[in-house]
Structures are given as structure tokens and as C-alpha cells.
């Protein structure tokens, strides 16, 4: 081999060789490092997911062995159930209303907090409280406040003379739904506000200054600079929150338990009642599976609405 041919590869290929040595052995190490997490996900998420589908085709009940294969009977049972469509509409309406209110209140708070004033950081910390405090504590406290006999709200309204006698807020349809929405929003909007605020602070001041020079008013600047600047953050938050709000079990379970007479019975709660109170695991497993397409449609609809908003 001549000097020339030996030198040439060395001159041409060092970058590639460096790369190869950097990532050599990555495959084995990569799988090794990922394997514990993969095991957890496959064993504790993947396997239960498949199990849920399988159980939904059986008449399995708590404490009665594996159950018989019943095909689509559980699905037919749920579809044929007279209140099914009502329950779906209720779930979707409550989730969408809650998400809408959280977005509006969150935006208002974010705009209000997006100014420089003393104590802003402390205030931001206080506004995070609903989000960091345990959900069950928050719901139990609000349930006591709304309680019809000894509840705080009744005590206040009666002592102020607004009500002449106690009103059972959680035992009347309208007020129970309102209370559920209120607690969902109360617990959820601070997170929206703080993520929106974080997003607003990444928008350059130059844009606002330029808009001011061009004569854009406050509302115009909000619509044409703040909202577009927040689009991505808002998109992620609203999408995730729509899914989570739809799936929220803890808040309705502890606040109303589905009552009065199923008026706040949303699908996660119905799943819980079917499985843990009636011990009908097959039907309980079938219901959330049936809701998956509805969740998917809802997510697509929300995503579509936001795209349309952006196109305007």
C-alpha cells in the first residue's frame, strides 16, 4: 500500500469514524437501560390494557372465578341501557363546559398576572395551591361547604339573609351539576393560568411595541399577538385537559357520587359503580373501551376547532 492510499481514508473519514465510535454499542446499552421501564409499561400498562379488552367479553364478576365468554353481550347491555346516550351526552357536556371555563378563567388570570407588580411571585405561589393540594381534600372540603344540612355555604347564606332556609345544593339537579363544574374549574384553572402565563412570558415585547406603533389597541394586541403566541401551549393544555377532565373519577365520586338520581353520573363514575359496587367487571371493563372512540372524536374536534381559530 502506498503512502497516498493510506493517508487518504484518514483524511476523508475521521468525522464518520468518530461518530461510529461515539455511538458504538448504543444498541445494547440502549435496550439495557430502557428494559426496566419497558417491563413496567408492558407488564403494568400493556398487559392490563389487553386484559381490560378480554374481560369486557366475559361475564366476570368479583369473587366468581374467570367468567364465561359472552361475546358482545356486555357491549349490547350498555348500548341497550336506556340512560346510555344521556350519560354520554352528560359526560361530554360537563367535560367541554369545564374545559371551556378553565380556559377562559385561566386566560383572564394569566393576563392579569402578566404585569409587573410587587408580590407577583408570592401571588403566583398561592394560585398554585388548588393544583398542588390533594384532590380528595379539596373535594371533601367543598362537599362540606355545599352540604345541605350543616354546610358552610348554607350557614353563610342564611346568616346573611339570602336564603331563608337551608338549600340542599348537592341534592338538586341544577345546583349539583353547577357544584361539580365549579369544583372541576376551581381545581383546574390555576394550572391553565400558570402555563399560559409561562407561555406569555416567552412572547417578545418587540411585537407589542411594533403593534402599538401600528395603532393596534389592547384587544387587537391580545387577539393578534398574545393568542397566536399562546396557541401551542394552549393547544397542548386544552387537549390533555379535555382527556383528563373526561376521565375524572375522583371529583364526581367524592362530591356527588353521581347523584341526585344519576344526574351527575359521568362515564368513569359509572364504570366504578358497575365494577366496584355491582361487581360486574365485564360491563365495567366494556364501558371505558366504548368511550375510547368518543374521547378520540372529542380530541379531534377540539384540535380542529383550534386549527380553525388559528386560520382566522
Amino acid at each position, binding site marked *: 500500500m502506498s503512502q497516498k492510499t493510506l493517508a487518504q481514508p484518514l483524511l476523508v473519514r475521521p468525522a464518520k469514524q468518530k461518530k461510529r465510535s461515539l455511538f458504538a454499542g*448504543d444498541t445494547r446499552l440502549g435496550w439495557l437501560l430502557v428494559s426496566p421501564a419497558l417491563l413496567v409499561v408492558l407488564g403494568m400498562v400493556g398487559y392490563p390494557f389487553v386484559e381490560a379488552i378480554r374481560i369486557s367479553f366475559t361475564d366476570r364478576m368479583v369473587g366468581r372465578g374467570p367468567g364465561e365468554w359472552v361475546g358482545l353481550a356486555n357491549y349490547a347491555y350498555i348500548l341497550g341501557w336506556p340512560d346510555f346516550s344521556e350519560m354520554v351526552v352528560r359526560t361530554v357536556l360537563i367535560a367541554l363546559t369545564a374545559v371551556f371555563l378553565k380556559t377562559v378563567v385561566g386566560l383572564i388570570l394569566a393576563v392579569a398576572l402578566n404585569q409587573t407588580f410587587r408580590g407577583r411571585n408570592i401571588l403566583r405561589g398561592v394560585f398554585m395551591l388548588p393544583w398542588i393540594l390533594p384532590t380528595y381534600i379539596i373535594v371533601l*372540603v367543598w362537599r362540606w361547604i355545599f352540604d345541605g344540612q350543616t354546610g358552610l355555604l348554607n350557614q353563610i347564606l342564611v346568616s346573611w339573609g339570602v336564603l331563608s332556609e337551608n338549600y340542599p345544593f348537592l341534592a338538586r339537579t341544577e345546583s349539583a351539576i353547577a357544584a361539580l363544574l365549579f369544583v372541576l374549574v376551581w381545581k383546574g384553572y390555576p394550572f391553565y393560568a400558570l402555563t399560559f402565563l409561562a407561555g406569555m412570558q416567552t412572547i417578545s415585547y418587540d411585537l407589542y411595541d411594533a403593534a402599538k406603533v401600528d395603532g393596534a389597541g389592547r384587544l387587537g394586541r391580545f387577539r393578534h399577538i398574545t393568542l397566536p403566541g399562546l396557541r401551542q401551549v394552549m393547544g397542548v393544555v386544552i387537549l390533555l385537559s379535555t382527556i383528563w377532565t373526561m376521565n375524572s373519577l375522583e371529583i364526581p365520586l367524592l362530591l356527588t357520587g353521581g347523584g341526585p338520581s344519576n344526574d351527575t353520573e359521568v362515564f*368513569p363514575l359509572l364504570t366504578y359503580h358497575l365494577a366496584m359496587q355491582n361487581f360486574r367487571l365485564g360491563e365495567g371493563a366494556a364501558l371505558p373501551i366504548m368511550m375510547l372512540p368518543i374521547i378520540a372524536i372529542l380530541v379531534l374536534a377540539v384540535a380542529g376547532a383550534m386549527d380553525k381559530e388559528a386560520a382566522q
Partner: protein
Amino acid sequence: MTRLFDRVPESVFRILSFVVISFLLLLILFPLYFMLTTAFKFEGEIYSELTWLPREPTLSNFRDVIVNFHIPVYLRNTLIVALSTTAIVVVISVLAAYALTRLRFPGRAVMARGVLFVYLIPGSLMLIPMYLIIANLRLKDSYLGLIVANMSFSVPFCTWLMMGYLRSISSEIEEASLIDGCTRLLSLWYIVIPLSIPGIVTAMIFIFNNVWNEFIFALVLAQDERHRMISVGLSNFYRSDYYMVGPMMAGSLIAMTPVVILYILAQRYVVSGLAAGAVKG
């Protein structure tokens, strides 16, 4: 309308903001204030009338929950489960997140995307199979069962959080160390992990909080008094129509103290984690 809004001078706008903030702040503080004051009231006072401050402040509710209602046992159980879950999950997730963001190997992209997907599976779908699996493994009413159930959503969540954090820190120092002959594992230990401490702390706080605040799995998987979690123990103060408001408020104050302290200590980290947009709400 638009014109009107634009003509509002800046000072009026500030006052308007102030009013909005005050109103929302009052709504936030209202239940918390009454939780705090009611915890120090006697039962008679709670049910009979509205008082803004306890007429005769008492610690009897706290004595009740500590002596008569086994709250210390529930707190110990919750602490054991929360600390164990946090320790296990953070190790598993940091290793996985490192591999998924820094190493190049076939299957990486699919798994990286899968993490988010797993995170979106409805909890109500997992409830029944998880209950059956835990029961079949004879892990009902055990710490291990609760740890396993909590791991199922903590591992994808924490991996996702750590992936976001690792992507945000430069890999230049790490690559320099590799060129100088450092192995992957050594560089993970001596370079990547020290650089990621804020992210790891954030992740640990989130996991601990999630486990500490978890209610549904705790309710379904640990009914036994000896393994009961604090969330279930406190919700039992509301039995059908009989509310034990005083003990409930005192217990709530005790249960939320660790969460609040942790949060105050780590607010800086939590805010940065929040900015990453990776938090449930």
C-alpha cells in the same frame, strides 16, 4: 366594544386586573381558610352557627384523629408507599429517558413516542384489570400492590418529564467526555446526572405528590385498616350522611402539610417543570 376597551386607560386596566385577581384569590382562599379555622373548632360550634374564628380554639380534633382514628398509621403507610415508589420510579425513568434521548438504537423512536401515548390511556380503563391483576398476585392490601399500581402511571409520566429535561440540556460536555474516552455509563453518572439534578428533583416531587395524593387505587386496592392510605382514611370521615367535619379538617391539614412544605422548598424547580408543560391538571 373594541373601541371602548382600547380607550380604557392603563391605570383603569390595572385596577380591573387587581379586582379580578382579588376575586379569584378570595375564591381560592375561602375553602382553605375555613378548613384551617374549622380544624380548631369544637363540634358544637361547627354545626350550630357561622363563626369566622374559633370561639374557643381547641386541639381536640387533632387529638381525635391521632388517637382515635389511626391517622398516624395511614400517614406511615402513605409515606412508605410514596417513598418506595419515588425511589424505584426515578431510577427506572432516568435510565430510560437517557437512553431514549441520547443513545441511537433501533426502536428508540417508537418507544419515545409510545411514552406519551401510554400517558394518555384513561385511568378508568386500567382500574378493573389492575384490580384483578393485583388481586391475583395476592398483593391486595399490601404495600407492594400499591407501589406496583402507582408505578404503572408514574414510570411513563416521569420518563416523559425526564426526556423533556434531558433534551433541554446541551449534550456537548457529554460528547466531549465520550471523545476523550469516557464510557457511556461513566458519563451518565459523572456528567448527565449531576447536570440533571433540577429535573430529577422536579420529577421526584411530582411522583411523591402523585402517590401521596392518589385516591382511587388506594380505595380499591387497600381496604384493610393496616395498609390503608391517608386519602382513603380521610374520605371515611364522610360516611353516608354522617360527617365528622372537625376531624376531617384537622386530618386534611395534617395530610397536606408534607405536600405544601415540599412545594415551598422546591417551588423554583416546580415552576421550571411547569414551564416544560408536562404536568397533569
